[in-house]
């Protein structure tokens, strides 16, 4: 159980760092990497990736929105999703990160099982 939460934290921190110095998908790939080298089930793989990336993208986008008065969030929301609700934009952002992270985490865990 403790391992589950530690994995999520590690994935989030590594993803944040990797995304900062390279590209966006380096983040989800961290979910793959962590689950490749840390023992756990496929389900754990998916959920640590899902929550690791999902919560990270949620926190970062929420902060960006709040600290800038949501000026750009609303405009982008209208352009992309026909809605100026910050909540929707943040939700979709988080979901995209979460699903990418979840798939990568699941893949990592599965690859580990095959390796052993």
């Amino acid at each position, binding site marked *: 159980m403790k391992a589950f939460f530690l994995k999520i934290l590690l994935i989030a921190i590594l993803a944040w760092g990797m995304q900062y110095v390279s590209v966006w998908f380096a983040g989800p790939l961290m979910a793959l990497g962590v689950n490749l080298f840390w023992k756990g089930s496929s389900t754990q793989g998916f959920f640590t990736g899902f929550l690791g990336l999902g919560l990270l993208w949620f926190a970062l986008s929420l902060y960006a929105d709040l600290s800038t008065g949501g000026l750009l*969030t*609303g405009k982008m929301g209208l352009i992309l999703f026909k809605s100026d609700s910050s909540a929707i934009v943040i939700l979709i952002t988080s979901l995209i990160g979460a*699903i990418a992270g979840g798939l990568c985490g699941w893949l990592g865990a599965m690859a580990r099982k095959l390796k052993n």
Partner: protein
Amino acid sequence: MKVLKLLILASITFAFLLFLNRTVVINGTALPPFGKLLDPVNGFWANAEKDVPHLKTSLQSDFLKGEVTVRYDERWVPHIFTSSASDAYFAQGYVTAAHRLWQMEFQTHAAAGRLSEILYHTAGDKVLKVDRMMRRNGLKRSAEKSLAEFQSNPEAKMIVSSYTEGVNAYIESLSYRDYPVEYKLLNYQPEKWTELKCALLLKYMAHMLTGESDDIALTHQVNKYGKDFVNLFYPDFPVDMTDPIVPSGTAFEKDPKFSPTADTLVVDSVPAVAVTKLPFEKTPEGYGSNNWAVAGSKTKSGSPILCNDPHLGLNFPSIWFEMQITTPDYNVYGVTLPGAPAVIIGFNDHISWGVTNGTRDVKDFYTVKFKDDTRAEYWVDGNWEKSVIQKDTFYLRGESDPYIDNIIHTRFGTMLYDEGLTEDKTAQNLACTWIADESSNELFTFVNLNKAKNFDEYAAALAYFNCPAQNFVFASKTGDVAIWQQGGLYAHNKEQGRFIQDGTLSQNIWTDKVSPTYTPHVKNPERGFVSSANQHPTDSLYPYYYNGRFEYYRNRRINSELTRLSGITPEDMMKLQNDNYNGIAAEALPYMLQNLNVDGFDKYKDILKKWNYFNDAEQAGPAVFEDWWNELVKMMFEELLTDNLENQIPQQYNIIRVMKAQPDHFIFDYALTNNKKENVKDLINMSFKSSCERLDSFQVHGKSLAWMDYKATSVQHLLFTLKPFGRFNIPTGGGKNIVNATAGRWGPSWKMIVSLEKETKAYGVYPGGQSGNPGSKFYDNFLDQWAAGKYYELWFMQSELDEKQPVLFTQKLFK
């Protein structure tokens, strides 16, 4: 089995990541790369601004000679302090790019006919056609000629290369995270800036200001209706000559190179051709402007006051970027065009200047006779000559193969409308010559105006200006005021260029230009002011022939107000720039009401009778009049508007004149009623009825008759489909042919008032903001002030330590 499951999951995962990382086009709509775009670390979230734009506090560059300080004031206007001209131009490039990079690249791509490289995957052949027309109109070609001119002159070469270095210093510092949001949405990246792009930007402005020529439309009308018709509705000089720029009756010196051409009609037959309606969007009529300068004899302070408000499209990012540039040799403040060096409209420690469009016709059309469909040869003076066929390459986003266009050049100009662009055979054989398609150094006009200290230096600066001719207004602290319509003026024969010309006679090719000293100008006139609002530069006494579409209302209003006023203050000038007097209504409405005998619609009759002819934002009169008048004009010229030919209708001044003097003119007979013959009075009643019915339904759908709602002024992003990046229903009055020339999609793009006292007092405002970033507070923060007719006090810093206003941020550039 496990391996198979793994492979399937791997495929799904990587396919998903791939989809999130690229643009996917579905049914012509491009879905952006959602993963890349929504990444909170690098995507659009990074473009959201907290309080001020994200700028580096310092930059090191080997190119710089000394240290540069940039101080950003409360309105985010950069005040740049340098120790050399090359550092100044480098800094201008760097600072402008830091705020408007996407706009600079997009506009120069448009000018170069390269929009297909960015938009072909969604816009397809529509954007390719636009690009092909840009190349055929010669923007890229003439920019290359100008660039060669710049590079052959040491000072010009230094200027464009320094500016380019500055822009590239900014571009090189960028990673994906720093890109303007438009790059992220459209998923492409900025390319290196080149010196050619500086030239392209200047030609792009020339293209915007050149507008449309009436040659094709008038040719059709003169052939169908005769010369009397054309002279009645499109006189080169109206009988009641109204307020030219150079006061009527002024004697003009003749250029010793030529004998006067204004009376020498050489060709009196016009090719009997007509062209089907061309499938291209026209540059809107009305890209004009106002400027004037009042001498000290008429001002309260005793010093001259200069005013300018150029009328251009209302877009984001704003056309202009405000800045101050200081070197040991000059200290200049004003607005710049992102992508071109120097300050375009503004003032320095000695003088001030401003610009309005000359609106002279600077394009001529010729019918060319080709030997056969290969178009390899054409007939001139009894012989076959070889055409020059140029291959032009267009790269298309999303396609591996480029499009190759064959552009044909003849002595009479470029063939504009080849196969694939139009179906019409006559159009396909039209060659076009454009004054801008020449080598020229307009850049030097602005560079030298930035440095100019007096009238002589101003006149020398203007001599470099070629196309399209502009009215440069001038005032100096020593008390001079002047105005000069400067730009290439070919010594045409009478009526040459008014219609399409015969492209088999070399005598119709342009000869030479009137020397710059002999173009229309006036200095320190007795009446105590100079002004221009796109009207005729002269009366018919000017010795050289010219034609064009000229203003008849704003100029008269400005001149009558400037004549009436004395002890003038900057506040008086602000009132005048925002004046909403509707001269067209004052001239047409009384006649229309006099002849109205329709029953009912009392609500609208009341509104019109109570109206004071001012297009103020909340009044209903302007909307009712505008709707009725437009309907009336449409009915008057139904024949011209519906014959499917390339056509134009007369200007309103001439329509009103003829309407009153000849209400039974045959053109007013409404074409759609075959057995009835109408005159203007019938049309007045018919149009009133249909207009009121439309206004009724307009209100049923929730809209109000307030002029600001009817006009619905908006400022929109250059990518107009991105509506959330625009601002709509801006509460402002004004309109076409009104001093406050704010229409639906264009208006005063900059309003400036400069009082040339010992300590310069200057005021300005524009409808946008310094930042091109929609996520910035500085994207549109000036708009409300502009709409309300208010101004900001411009801070003309006298040293980098000046503390009169707050400084929000400082940047240092060093070697």
